[in-house]
């Protein structure tokens, strides 16, 4: 589309070298590679997901393939308890993770924004898990949680807990164990973004507040927090979507188990399509996930009045 519009208006060949005259085609040429990539590998797949969600489509059972109407959706909402379980777990996972990450991230950012001896090394260490991948995080926490030589063994040596405890295979502890592992890597995300924004608060404001006798808490409430609002809203939103969608960590750490205890909706979709080859049904579940994501992001943008600006 972008190209068509560009071709429609060939620019008059410039007589003199007047660089300030903008060739009309240039912006279209510049966005064309990005636009084409996104059309081919994001827009087209999304549309095909919508299409398949209305089909029975399973390469291993081709005789049943064909138009299914809304059957896939009806099945999900009325006949598939696993769908509701995974949806509930996703919600719980996102709320707990994002809430705790924001809390700790904000606190950490405020701390490392102070002037103190060892600040730069402190920052580097605090931020370091941020770049650790989901799979590597899993590997590290598998080492920590394993029942024979993990931390539980050494805790048991000190008289805390029992030998042979495996937090990842016990349904009563697996959620907390996974939450802690993901927190370890997720907190620095908020800390980095909030710290970056903290650095753009004008120092004059604090000085003025100080002259007026404002306490440190008042300064935080009335200067820092309003300044950070946009950054907090944006990072919370992005992180919530990211936590909802991210499957690396849970896939490798718990595999969604034990007994489906930690299966999020995207993990369930992946299992349905990759293992059960039920592409039609998986597409319907994906469509549901899209609608949820869209719905929440619109509400969120409205509530925070973030959508008001140009960006």
């Amino acid at each position, binding site marked *: 589309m972008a190209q068509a519009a560009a071709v429609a208006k060939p620019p008059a060949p410039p007589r003199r070298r007047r660089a300030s005259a903008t060739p009309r085609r240039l912006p279209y040429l510049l966005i064309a590679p990005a636009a084409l990539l996104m059309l081919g590998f994001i827009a087209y797949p999304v549309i095909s997901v919508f299409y398949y969600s209305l089909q029975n489509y399973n390469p291993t059972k081709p005789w049943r393939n064909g138009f299914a109407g809304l059957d896939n959706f009806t099945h999900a909402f009325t006949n598939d308890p696993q769908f509701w379980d995974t949806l509930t777990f996703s919600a719980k996972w996102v709320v707990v993770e994002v809430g705790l990450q924001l809390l700790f991230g904000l606190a950490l950012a405020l701390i490392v924004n102070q002037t103190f001896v060892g600040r730069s090394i402190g920052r580097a260490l605090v931020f*370091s898990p941020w770049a650790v991948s989901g799979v590597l995080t899993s590997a590290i926490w598998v080492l920590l949680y394993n029942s024979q030589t993990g931390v539980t063994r050494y805790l048991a040596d000190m008289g805390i807990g029992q030998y042979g405890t495996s937090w990842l295979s016990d349904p009563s502890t697996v959620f907390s164990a996974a939450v802690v592992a993901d927190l370890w890597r997720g907190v620095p995300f908020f800390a980095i973004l909030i710290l970056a924004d903290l650095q753009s608060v004008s120092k004059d404001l604090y000085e003025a507040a100080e002259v007026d006798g404002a306490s440190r808490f008042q300064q935080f409430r009335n200067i820092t927090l309003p300044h950070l609002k946009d950054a907090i809203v944006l990072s919370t939103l992005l992180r919530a979507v990211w936590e909802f969608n991210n499957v690396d960590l849970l896939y490798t750490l718990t595999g969604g188990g034990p007994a489906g205890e930690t299966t999020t909706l995207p993990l369930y979709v992946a299992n349905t399509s990759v293992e059960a080859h039920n592409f039609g049904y998986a597409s319907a579940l994906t469509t549901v996930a899209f609608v949820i994501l869209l719905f929440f992001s619109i509400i969120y943008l409205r509530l925070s009045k973030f959508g008001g600006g140009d960006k």
Partner: protein
Amino acid sequence: MITEIAPARERESAAPQQPRKVRRAWDEVPRWQIYLPLGIYLVFTLIPFYWILLFAFRPAGSTSLVPWPMTLDHFQKVWTERSFGVYFQNSVYVGVATLILTTVVALAGGYALARFEFKVKRAFMLALLCSQFVPGALLLVPLFQIFAKLQMINSLGSVILAETVFQLPLSMILISGFIRNVPQSLEEAAWVDGCNRFSAFRIVVLPLLRPGLIAVGSFAFVHAWNHFLFALMFLSDQSKQTIPVGLNTLMSADSVDLGALAAGGIVAAIPVVIVFAFIQKWLITGFSAGAVKG
């Protein structure tokens, strides 16, 4: 509130800085309020790192809490027997290619968004914002079908393309912000001096974008290096797989070789550590929208 801040900030950066007389509030925070929570958090952050180092360097079967006597057996095993040498090379290809592709495409698009008004601009911006909510994980099946049609299954190109596409929207938004921070008058001055648009961009704008581009580029590299799902799905040959897939294979074995897993994890982390040690300085400045300060 915010609107009141903005002019104050501009004034501050415009006027020459004067030595401050008022004592700043943050100088008065009691030290223990900084060091105590920071110390506790650092224990939580660092124990997992120590743990993986411990398992990687101590001999198999040891339960000592210090990696001594030290051994490199696990590294040797993982690099050769578990083919991490091959995975490493593949991951480097994927990371570097994604970095270059993402930065170049996002730079072109970001420049258009920052400097031109054109018909589909708003629609394109909206598409960029919306596509951030589209999860790659949920598009695995259609993407697999596309790459199958393009005969790219089992080639690193599929992973590179997929990683680039999902990095693009955010990278482009960030870069267009960085470019907007460079006053257009700088470019116009260069045009007057006889530069064309491209050379003005290269000579005047590009150097000022350096912190931002380094941040965006290293994000692209690290993300592609770390990402797991696309490689798992699109690459079936063992000789084509990447480090995260190799790690997952180690973890999902029937009896996990913890020493090899730890060594593999460290191999996976080394390039990321190097990148971040290198860009630490630019990381915060790059993202504080102050790409042109100083």
